[in-house]
Structure formats: structure tokens, C-alpha cells
């Protein structure tokens, strides 16, 4: 049985006005969505690309629905190359459509509607993904959006395969067996399997019996299927997952309810699950109604010739091209109009998906910056951060670290208009997946290790960046055996880049040499001793128990000290800055102070917190500060918003404007 076979095979637009054309457009739209628009995001969730150890593999598979997670984990390995991942996702979406459509073929109702309805699950998978946004960076289950796709694919694919069996007893037996045994592998998607099998059987019976007339055996089978699939989780729980409560079993592998926090500037916070359900009702419900309601032409279908002997002409109806389904002849739209309508449906679904997806500059800036960050592309980080109108703390942290790596932090600290204080702990708590590397970059190896360790298997899964950070921090502390442990995990990665990195790191450790420079985010290692016991999270900055001696600092120590003072400025900790500026300058060989330090010195001099005349302040900066002071004095008299806007435009790249938005005691 086939439907919508290209009957109209003539004309130059034959390929376009065909199912193949529709699929091609769908694949293109999917590829564009995943690969072009959200390629950076795919790269960010690629972390689950490690082949776990047997224990970890079993820990996955031992959970109901864990098989789906394993599939998602392996699938996400492709995301290291977003184009490849996007292509794979597009084909996954197409595969979901194909199995969905295969199930509905032969049903009463319009075939076109069934064809379109079959695209809905693919778009729902996309909807799931797009509603989570940056929360996926925090999730310990970031590939969750793939699991429903695989779940639906396996569930519906099983039913689609089973429906081909003509022998009823065999088909029913296998259906019951699959429905019963699917739970450990598919979790709640076993219900999708059972439900689809149930509906398929209803369809078959109504078709054969011309209505809802069931024999006793049929009713018994349907009841068995429904009841069996409903209690299967409990039975499995009794046999295998003995410690799980019913609630946990019945939501196994279900999409986690993640409170979605879209970027705070444009969207509302929505619950992904509710969104999914709402989308299902709206899109799926309409299509299902259209798909299931029988159309006119049934009487004609009964009289229509069937079998091989009938010619195509006989099958063709009066109203243009007619499709043939299981021997029926229907009166329907011509193929051209049908495919145009299909394209229209695709367009509507695509627009809806695009509209519902993260659209803020902050989202795209963050994902792009993260991708550059993980590739040690500091210029890319800085460029990405610039695209966000109002950067988040995480973005600012990444930018600052990139500047730090380039040795330009003190110089360019206030380059961008920054209207918000950077919160000391927020970037760690709200964007933990990057917090570890930021800390490692600042030289806080223990805290980086702690953050990376906490952002590891127990939380975000098997993060490649976290693994590398753990290895770096272990080497930094001299824990080479521990470093080998983490490096060994990346030897199991599906990514050749990860394996190559692991090989090179292992070789360098074996040879007792410093790991190759391009394998590390820093040029050399942090010298211990200059800092002692401190707690960065609560204080926002390390507290020094002893200031470095006046002997010349090496470049690395100088950079760290400069970063420390920079964060003191960002945090409004003027006391620290004031007390350490002179020793820092002296230990740096009394060289030129960075621009932001000069600006800050002038500002604090005016507050009588230090004497700026000690330091070599550039004349241009002094003059600009004098002008700024006049501007401020004028504003204090006039209180004109335009004046403030002008001040922002003129002095937005200075420390002074930043300080104006916070109290000098560090409060906002």
C-alpha cells in the first residue's frame, strides 16, 4: 500500500511537489534550526561524549529508561561538530516523522492531514529543547531533549514494524511482549508504545468490522494490553527496582520538569512540561481530528476497482489526482495543492518553533562565548560578549578571563558600559559549568577542582571541560596520579580530539615534562605560596594573609595580582584596592599602571582613600577625569536625564561611571 505516490510525474516542479520535496524542506529547516541558529548551543551540550566505564554504563542502563539516556549520550557525541550534529538531528526528526506516518497510513481520514500530523512529534522535540535555554548548562541531564525523540522513535517504530504482521495471534503476542518488556528500556515511552499499539488495533478492528464491533477475543486483548502496560512499571519495580516508589517508576525517563528561565530581558518563566503539553494539545489535537475523521468518498471507495489488474486510470478519481490507500479511492486535493499545504504547515510549525525558541542576544552571546571559551579562543570570547546588550555575570566573567589571558584585564576592565555590579558568587552558582574553568584561570585551583568535581558525573553528567579542568588542577597541585585518572576518562571519549588531548597529556606526564602549551589554557603554572587560606565564595575575593615581598614578581604572579585588584574594583572593595595598589605597583617594577587602575586611583583620591600623586597617571586620563567631575557636579545641580545619558555615552568606558552606580562601600 502506498499513498501519495508521485502520480503527477510530469513537469519541471515534480520534485518540489512531492513528499520528497517536503522532506527535503523539513531537513533543511531542521538543519538550519539546529546547526546554524543553535550550533553553539549544541556544542555546549556536547559534553556527554564519554564512553563511561562499565559501572557507569550499567548505572545508566539499570535505570528504567536509561537506555534512552545512553542513546542520547552517544548521539550527543556528534555535537562536537555542530553541523554534523544538526544533520543527525534533522534525520532523527525525519525518522520520527516517518514512523509516525507509517502508523497512520491506512487510517480513515485525510492522508494529507496524517502526513502533516506526523511532523508534530519532531517539532515537539524541538519545542522541548528551545524552552530550556541556558538552563541546560546547569542541568545534570542536558541531553534530556533527545530522549523523548528516541523514546518516540523506538516506541512508534516498534508498533510500525508490528503492524506489518498479518497473523493476528503472532502480532498480538509480540505486541503484548514488547509492551511489557519496553519499560526497563523506554521508561514512560513504553506507554507511548502501548498506546500506539492500542490505537492501531482499534483502527484495524474498526476497519475490518466496519465499526466498533469487537469480538470477545479482541476486547480481551485490548484490555490486556491496556492493563498490562499500566501495571508493568509496578511489576518491574517489584522484580527489579525494589527500592523505587510508584511515583518514581511512573515518571521514569519522563522529561524533567525544568523551570525555564529564559533570558530575563525578554521572556517569561515557563514550565517546559506544561509548554509541551499545551503544544501537544493545540497542534496534535487539531491534526488528529483532521486525520481521523473519515472523508467523503467512502461509497466510491467500495465500488473502486482493487488489485493489480486495475489501471491507474481506473483508480483516478474525477477531481484531479487521486491517491490510493489500501484499495480505497478518495476524493481529495490535487497533489500540488496538497504539497503546498504541507509546506504551509511546515512553515507554520517552523515559525512557531523559531518564535518560541530563545531569541535574545544574551542567549546567543553566552553560547557563542562558551564555545570560544572551551576552545581557548579568547578573541572569540571577547567578540561574543560584545554582541550582548546587557551581559550577564557569566558572560562578564568569561570576558574578563579572556582579557586576563591576553594580559589586558586591567587595561580593558571597564571598556564596556557596565551598569551592574558583578556579583561575587553569582557566576559560580548560576553558571557552574563554566565557573570551574574561570576559577582555574584565575589560579584558584582548589576551588576550580571543587566546582568541576561538583559539576561532574553527579550533576551535569560527563563534562569534557570539567574533566580537563580537574586534570589541570590536579597537575597544578602535583597530584599527577589523580590527573591521570581524569585524563584516562577522556581516552574513552568518542571524540578524536578528546582522545588526542588525553594521549598528549599522558605522554607529557610519562616523560615528566610540562604538558604541551596548546593543550593548556595557560602558558605556565601558578606558583604556590603567594596566597594562603581564603574563601572566595563568600567574600568575592581571596583574602591575602601576607602580601608579596617587594621583589620582582614573575609575569604570572603579576597577572594574578592584577586580576585580584580588578575584581576588587568590580566588587567595590576599595579598601583592598587602596591598600594593595602601591605594593602591586612596586612589585611590578613601577611600570605603567593599567588604565582602569589609573582611573580608579583618581576616583579614590577624590574620596581621600589614597594619594594618586604617587602613581604615574597619564595626562589624558587626568584631564578626562577633571571633565568627568565637572559633568557630575553639573548633574548634581541639574538632575537631567539627558545629562546622565550623555555622561554614559561619553564616559561609558571608564571606571568612574561604573563606580557611580554603586556605593563606595561596595553596595549597589
Amino acid at each position: 500500500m502506498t499513498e501519495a505516490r508521485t502520480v503527477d510525474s510530469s513537469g519541471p516542479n515534480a520534485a518540489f511537489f512531492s513528499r520528497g520535496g517536503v522532506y527535503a524542506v523539513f531537513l533543511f529547516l531542521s538543519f538550519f534550526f539546529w546547526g546554524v541558529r543553535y550550533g553553539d548551543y549544541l556544542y555546549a551540550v556536547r559534553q556527554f561524549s564519554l564512553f563511561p566505564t562499565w559501572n557507569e554504563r550499567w548505572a545508566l542502563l539499570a535505570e528504567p529508561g536509561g537506555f534512552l539516556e545512553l542513546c542520547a549520550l552517544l548521539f550527543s557525541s556528534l555535537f562536537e561538530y555542530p553541523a554534523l550534529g544538526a544533520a543527525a538531528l534533522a534525520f532523527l526528526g525525519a525518522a520520527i516523522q516517518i514512523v509516525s506516518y507509517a502508523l497512520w497510513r491506512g487510517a480513515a481520514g485525510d492522508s494529507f492531514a496524517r502526513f502533516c500530523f506526523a511532523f508534530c512529534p519532531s517539532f515537539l522535540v524541538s519545542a522541548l529543547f528551545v524552552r530550556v535555554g541556558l538552563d541546560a548548562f546547569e542541568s545534570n541531564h542536558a541531553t534530556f531533549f533527545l530522549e523523548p525523540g528516541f523514546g518516540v522513535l523506538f516506541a512508534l517504530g516498534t508498533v510500525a514494524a508490528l503492524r506489518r504482521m498479518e497473523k493476528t495471534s503472532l502480532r498480538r503476542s509480540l505486541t503484548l511482549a514488547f509492551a511489557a518488556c519496553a519499560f526497563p528500556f523506554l521508561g514512560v515511552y513504553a506507554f507511548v508504545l502501548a498506546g500506539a499499539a492500542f490505537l492501531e488495533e482499534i483502527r484495524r478492528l474498526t476497519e475490518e468490522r466496519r465499526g466498533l464491533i469487537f469480538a470477545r477475543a479482541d476486547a480481551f486483548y485490548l484490555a490486556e494490553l491496556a492493563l498490562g502496560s499500566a501495571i508493568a512499571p509496578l511489576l518491574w519495580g517489584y522484580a527489579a527496582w525494589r527500592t523505587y516508589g510508584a511515583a518514581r517508576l511512573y515518571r521514569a525517563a519522563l522529561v524533567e520538569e525544568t523551570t525555564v528561565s529564559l533570558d530575563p530581558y525578554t521572556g517569561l518563566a515557563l514550565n517546559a512540561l506544561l509548554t509541551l503539553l499545551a503544544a501537544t494539545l493545540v497542534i496534535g489535537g487539531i491534526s488528529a481530528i483532521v486525520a481521523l475523521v473519515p472523508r467523503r468518498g467512502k461509497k466510491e471507495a467500495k465500488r473502486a476497482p482493487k488489485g493489480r489488474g486495475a489501471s491507474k486510470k481506473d483508480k483516478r478519481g474525477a477531481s484531479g489526482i487521486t491517491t490510493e490507500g489500501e484499495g480505497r479511492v478518495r476524493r481529495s486535493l490535487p497533489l500540488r495543492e496538497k504539497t503546498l499545504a504541507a509546506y504551509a504547515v511546515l512553515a507554520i510549525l517552523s515559525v512557531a518553533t523559531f518564535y518560541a525558541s530563545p531569541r535574545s542576544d544574551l542567549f546567543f552571546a553566552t553560547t557563542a562565548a562558551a564555545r570560544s571559551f572551551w576552545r581557548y579562543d579568547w578573541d572569540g570570547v571577547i567578540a561574543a560578549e560584545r554582541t550582548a546588550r546587557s551581559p550577564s555575570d557569566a558572560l562578564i566573567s568569561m570576558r574578563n578571563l579572556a582579557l586576563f589571558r591576553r594580559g589586558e584585564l586591567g587595561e580593558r576592565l571597564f571598556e564596556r558600559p557596565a551598569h551592574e555590579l558583578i556579583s561575587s558568587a553569582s557566576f559560580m552558582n548560576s553558571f557552574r559549568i563554566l565557573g570551574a574553568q574561570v576559577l582555574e584561570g584565575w589560579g584558584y585551583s582548589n576551588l576550580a577542582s571543587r566546582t568541576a568535581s561538583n559539576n561532574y558525573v553527579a550533576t551535569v553528567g560527563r563534562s569534557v571541560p570539567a574533566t580537563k579542568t580537574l586534570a589541570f588542577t590536579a597537575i597544578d597541585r602535583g597530584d599527577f596520579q589523580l590527573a591521570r585518572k581524569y585524563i584516562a576518562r577522556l581516552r574513552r571519549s568518542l571524540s578524536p580530539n578528546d582522545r588526542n588531548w588525553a594521549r598528549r597529556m599522558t605522554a607529557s606526564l610519562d616523560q615528566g615534562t610540562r604538558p604541551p602549551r596548546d593543550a593548556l589554557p595557560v602558558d605556565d603554572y601558578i606558583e604556590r605560596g603567594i596566597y594562603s587560606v581564603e574563601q572566595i565564595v563568600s567574600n568575592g575575593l581571596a583574602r591575602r594573609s601576607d602580601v608579596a615581598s617587594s621583589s620582582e614578581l614573575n609575569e604570572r604572579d603579576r597577572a594574578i595580582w592584577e586580576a585580584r585588584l580588578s575584581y576588587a574594583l568590580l566588587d567595590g572593595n576599595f579598601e583592598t584596592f587602596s591598600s594593595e595598589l602601591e605594593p602591586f605597583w612596586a612589585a611590578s617594577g613601577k611600570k605603567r599602571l593599567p588604565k582602569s587602575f589609573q582611573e580608579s586611583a583618581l576616583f579614590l583620591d577624590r574620596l581621600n582613600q589614597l594619594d594618586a600623586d604617587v602613581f604615574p597617571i597619564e595626562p589624558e586620563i587626568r584631564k578626562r577625569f577633571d571633565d568627568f567631575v565637572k559633568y557630575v557636579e553639573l548633574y548634581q545641580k541639574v538632575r537631567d536625564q539627558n545629562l546622565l545619558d550623555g555622561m554614559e555615552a561619553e564616559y561609558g568606558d571608564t571606571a568612574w561611571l561604573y563606580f557611580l552606580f554603586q556605593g563606595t562601600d561596595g553596595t549597589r
Partner: protein
Amino acid sequence: MDKNAASDWKELDGKKERLARRFGNAGTVLRIGVGLAVLLAVLTFAALRLLPDSDVDAYLSGARCNAAERTPAIYPDYAGCAVPPNIAPMNFEIREEGVLFLTRFSVENGFSFVEKGKTADVSIGRWRKLLAEAVGKRVKVEVFVKGRNGEWSVFSPFYMNVAETPIDGWLHYRLIEPGYEYFSQITLAERNLETFDERFWFEAKSTNNRTCVNCHTFQNRRTENFLFHMRRVCPGSVLCRGGAVTKLDPNVPSDVLGAAYAAWNPKRPLVAFSTNATFQMFHSLSPDRIEVLDAASDLILFDAERSKSKPLCTTPELFETFPSWSQDGATLYYCVAESPYSDAPTAEKPTAPLATASVLESANSDEIDRRKLEAPDVYANFRYNLAKRAFDPTTQTVGEQETLVDAAPLGKSISHPRASPDGSTLVYTLSKFGTFPIWRRDADLWSLNLSTGETRPLDELNSDESESWHEWDSSGRWLIFSSRRDDGSFTRVYIAYYSEDGNWSKPFLLPQRNPQENFERMKSYNLPEPTVEPIRISPRKLAQAARRPC
């Protein structure tokens, strides 16, 4: 069907028959081939693994052999260890370069066998037979490695001494992430020491993902009576007595300041708890990454029969923690420190049965918060001594404190006292300061002769990394302890033999079927507790009890 079509079909049928014959034959050949290949593989595998002992020498007799003049590098390092006669196979990986590896295990004038492969993976049956003959003697292990040049390296043999005293058959421990936050993945596991079987008898995720599970304790190394504690969410203690599982209500120690370390009296249904206001601080660069401190700590006694508790050691200006009992249950050992905080509490604590948090007046929340702020300046001043008190089971009270080891003047701190079952020796952990030695790299095991008072470091057991969380088995001949010597971060279980004449053997790493398990497992083994029998209560029952509200 017309004649042509019939002819076509006939021809097709003929083709089909020929194809069927061909493919049928091919199918038969294929089936036979696959079968032979499988048989050959099985035989080869068996031959490789079951190389008779005598054939090793014959195998090597014509080969070029070089004496390596050293023992082979193996992981784990089991050379020179004393092992129990009932331990699981001591599988190890040969860390030498080569293409072929042979390992011969033998007992003098007794049973021997050879394993082939880079990993000496010994079957349990053969291992048991070997150990049965080696009780009181030693197992000789010889390793032969064939290099790429075709020459064999014959390494010097090493030996494993087989003790006469078996070890308790089961070991219970927590499997926990080495990080400090994500206790949702905690499991309580039971390992059969005679095999490699490990099962999880409680998982935190079976209740709620934010439940912390800690401090399981068994009465007298049996599993008839035991308990474990849950904190934060679904707080409470799950108590198992005689097969019945209950969850303690809030009137007994649950999360009052955080009931932490527990010790079940070996003779009576009494559990000594320490109740601690614990918090952590984090170094940014120091090798000692985490400091765990108490803002307050005391000891309380819980009566499991009556489900009531009472203060036991609650001296206001002192921090009492780590309770532990003597084997006869008549002596309570614990660690005690003077408060290093600036304003030590002076108010008298009430002695009423524990009902609310107010029983520890000095540890009100404001005071605790104040102490947390002060902690970075005083954390290095925590010095715990080892003390004991006589226990009167009738009145359920303790006598006067006696200091056994005064570590504070030495600039040290003691934790985890554990007395041997025969009452002769007590092993404790000594570190520079603090109350959480697992995070202190300088933490080492020390022993105290309870008769003479002599104390010394157990250099035979210690390493450059942390050793702590030790426990004796019921015979008093085996000490099981946690160590981070492997990599400085992931805690592993080590076992050492203590002979009757007071000598310690080299400790050995808990054997695994695949030695790489020790390297690859991303969990720490915490609080190993041996028992003579497995837990007989089903995990389901424990999970159901744990899910019950207090």
C-alpha cells in the same frame, strides 16, 4: 497466465531451486564454519587460560630468558602482603611492557596454576583451593613477560602470606562522590570479601535526591541490629532491630544540630551519637582543600529499646565527638577538644531528655553563625585529645573523663578512636589539627597500647596521604581502613593484618575482579565497617522505611 509467463515462472522456479541448493549448501557451510570458529575460540581460550603448571617451565625451557632481578611492577601492589584465607582472588595487572604474560601461583609442595594475560584474573574456585593449602604459609607468585624481541623476562617472585585467621566475610561502606555537595548519589553498599559481589542495600535516590545518608553502624559487627542516619530531607535515623525497620521520630536524635557519628554499644541496645554543628571551609590553593569544623559538638546516648535519648557528654566549653565503645561496652572512648572560639559558652546545659535543639544552649544559631565567621582565624587551633569514660549500663551514665592521649600540647589532633576486640590496642587517627582527617593529607594511623599507654605511629600502614576511618574486624586480627594514597582524592579501602605478637603487615587494597576498577571508579569508599554476616533486610524495606516521614 499465458504460456510465456508459465515458462518464465518455470525458469524462475528452476533458478530458485538452484539458488536454494547453492545457498542452502552455503548456509550449511556457514553454519558449520561458525560453529567450528566458536569451538576453536573456546578451545583456544581454554588452552590459553588453563596452561598446566608444568608446561610453563617446558614452555620456557627453549626460550631465551632474562632474569629481571626485581619483582614485577603490578597494580595493586600485593607483594609481601598478608592476606586472609578467605579473601577473594587478589587479581592484579602486570605493568610491564610485553606481548605475552604468564603468572604462576603456587604453594610450596602444593597446588599451583598459571594465569595467562596482562591481568592475573584468577577464578574463585582455584583461588580458594590455593589458599586452603596455603593457610599459615605463603603463596608464591611468579611473573613471566615476553618482550617484543621474543625474549622472556623472568621476574623475581613475590609472596603473599596467608594468615590463619579469616576476616569477617562482609564489608559495608558508603560510596560517595569525592566532592562535598552532591550527596544525592550516595549509596550504602555491602561487599562480600570472599567474592567480588557488591550490592547496594540503600541508595539516597530511593528516597529523595537531596537526602544525605551517613554513619551506618552495626552492633557488634552483626547485621541484626544496625542503623544509619539521614540528614536534611527525610531526616531521621533508620533503625533495624531484629528484622524490624523503624524510622526514629523527632524526639530522638535526628537532625538536632546534625547527629553525625554513631557507635552502637556491643552489648546493649544503646547508641552513642555525636551531635555536631558542622560546616566547611575551602582553601583556594592549599594542598588541603577542605576544612571541616564544628561550631559545637556533644555526645548523646540513644536507647533503642525505649526510643529515648539523653545527653552523655555535654561539657559546655568542650567539643566532644567520635564516640566509640570497648568490646565489653563498659568504656566509652571519644575525642575532646577545648573550644578555640573566642567566647566559649558558659551557660550550664540542661540534662533533661533531648527534646529540642535547646538542650545545647551554647550552640544557638546566632552563636553558631558567629563561630563560622571566626572559623577562618581559628580552624588551625582545633586540637582533639583522646579520652575515655567508664559507662554504667544501669544508670546509663558515664564517669569522669580520663585523658588517654594528650595530643594538644604536641600540636596534634586525634580522631576516630577504635579499640580492638580484645581490648589491648586502640587505633586512632592523628593529624595536625581538626576533626575531619580524611581531608588532611598528614592524617595517619597511630596505635595506643591500652595496657602500657604507649603510643606510636603505624608507619607500616601510613602513607603520604590521608589514612582514617578504620575499623577492626571481629577477630581483632584485621584492620580495615580508608586511604587516599592512590591519588590523593579518591578514598580506597585497605586491609592490614595485626599479628598476635603485635606486628603489622603491609596493607593491601581491597581486591576487585578487574583491578582497573580501583583506578576508574569515580567514587570514594567511606566508613568501611566489617560484619560477619550480610544484611538480611531487603533494600525495598529499608527504602520504604526511609521514605516515611518522621
